[in-house]
């Protein structure tokens, strides 16, 4: 048996989650005493194979097919390679594209799937640590049998480093004609302001409750000479434009000071702002995950605290 990791790339660049998945895959391969195989599908596979040759990788399989991600090609390539190298475990990034084919891969291989792992343990079988109830709790999940597909959350494993001595082979695989065709990409969130350039951000979340209350946070941003940003629900509701969104699907920001107002700190949001120098959180829920990464916190009602804070700077 072996462990198979499938890499991910976009517009000519391997994504970091590929190297993180290699680390998670190596962890499993060590626990099982088996080889680690890495698959890379589409794009400049030769160049990608060279970059993926990190410490701990035993073999790399390059599958040339088009330029970009196609879930049918990825599913078919991973499924065929999993059979060829007898991969008991297939490890993929828990990314938007990972979730576009990992479930289909598990289904076609007829093995269990666990997504969004934040930790793994392998003894007699696999135990996965993952969150539930919007990150309020962690759970452990035991997986029956010794074959499975696992997707791993970004940022939870360090990226694989160094240069390995993996064999590289071009895998000849018949890929199906796809009924889903990528016609292009669109950058979203352009416009008048780039929140990534701001030194101080005042960021507003679901706790603001109503659209008309956004004005209160605008006033705070003005008083502090800060730029206004937001978490996802505010943009979903159309209360602020997409170019103000901080998080995984929005902008990654690293200001000197980030003030999170009424933001609980879901993992997708935190991924976009955890690199800020100083993080301040104002939230009613003392257990909100935003306090885990905050440097300063006020547990209180934003509608009481924010007007007072505006007065302080008036």
């Amino acid at each position, binding site marked *: 048996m072996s462990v198979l990791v499938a890499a991910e790339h976009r517009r000519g660049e391997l994504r970091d989650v590929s190297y993180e998945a290699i680390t998670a895959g190596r962890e499993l391969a060590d626990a099982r005493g088996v080889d680690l195989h890495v698959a890379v599908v589409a794009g400049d596979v030769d160049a990608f194979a060279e970059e993926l040759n990190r410490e701990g990788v035993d073999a790399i399989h390059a599958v040339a097919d088009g330029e970009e991600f196609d879930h049918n090609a990825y599913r078919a390539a991973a499924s065929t390679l999993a059979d060829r190298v007898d991969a008991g475990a297939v490890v993929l990034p828990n990314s938007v594209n990972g979730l576009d084919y990992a479930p289909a891969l598990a289904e076609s291989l007829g093995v269990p799937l666990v997504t969004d792992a934040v930790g793994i343990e392998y003894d007699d079988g696999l135990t996965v640590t993952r*969150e539930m109830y919007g990150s309020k709790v962690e*759970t452990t999940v035991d997986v*029956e049998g010794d074959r499975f597909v696992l997707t791993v959350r970004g940022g939870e494993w360090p990226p694989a480093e160094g240069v390995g001595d993996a064999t590289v082979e071009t895998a000849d695989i018949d890929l199906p004609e796809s009924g889903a065709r990528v016609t292009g990409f669109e950058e979203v969130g352009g416009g008048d302001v780039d929140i990534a350039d701001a030194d101080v951000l005042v960021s507003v979340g679901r706790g603001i409750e109503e659209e008309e209350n956004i004005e209160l946070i605008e006033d705070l941003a003005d008083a502090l000479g800060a730029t206004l940003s937001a978490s996802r629900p505010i943009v*979903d509701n159309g209360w602020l434009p997409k170019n103000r969104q901080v998080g995984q*699907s929005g902008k*990654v920001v690293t200001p000197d000071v980030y003030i999170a107002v009424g933001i609980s700190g879901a993992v997708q949001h935190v991924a976009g702002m955890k690199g800020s120098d100083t993080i301040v959180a104002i939230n009613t829920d003392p257990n909100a995950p935003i306090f885990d990464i905050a440097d300063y916190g006020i*547990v209180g009602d934003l509608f009481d605290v924010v007007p*007072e804070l505006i007065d302080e700077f008036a």
Partner: protein
Amino acid sequence: MKVLVTVKEVAEADDDFAIEGTDIAESDLEYDLNEWDDYAVEAAVQLAEAGIADEVVTVTVGPERSEETIRMALAKGADRAVRVWDDALDGGFADVASKVELFEAVVAEEEPDLILGGVQAADTGFGATGVALAERIGFEHAAVVNDLDVDADAGVAHVHRELEGGVEELTDVDLPAVLTVQTGLNEPRYASLRGIRQAQRKEIAVKALSDLGLTAEDVESALTLTSMYEPESESDAEIIEGDAGESAGRLAEVLRDKGVSA
């Protein structure tokens, strides 16, 4: 065309909650329509209003309690509902394959042209059922859709998939297809009073495993939830105490120290 929408009633934990065994205490959970599915229902109802969908049917795996949530989807404009439940489904930690087994049986009865569901459920957060279902039933699919334009005559859905980092992928998906819907796709409506009244008269067909030609063995899960706990707080935040005025005053000092000023 006929649109099937997967609708889940999810549990949300109160701010203060206790864990009993491997789950949150029932008294500390509130049940609601899964946020992502709300957008899927809206997308389906909009297709009906645009004359593209002839019928919108919801399907839910859940106990009788979930009928309140199902009525909400019906009040927003779905035509009728299927609810699958069985004692064999109670208490376990369902894996993706067992859910797919149930949905596959419903799809065989309903024969939809398009299946919409949320990207993930807010409670378990697997984000996998839709894509696994597509593979099982031989439909095309797209995950994490945040823009949708169905061309029924051409048999294609033009979608945007929301990738990471502010990039959207534009994809043409052949029908029949399963699309998993991201929040922000549309503006989910509130149910009108008229809608709520009408929903009371709409059909919710309840199916047990045997009604779908399945047995308890078909839905055995390969996953077991073995523990649940509150993650240890890694917080080393300085929590500023005091009433609103005091804490704002202290925070203002901190911010000025960091060079913040208008």
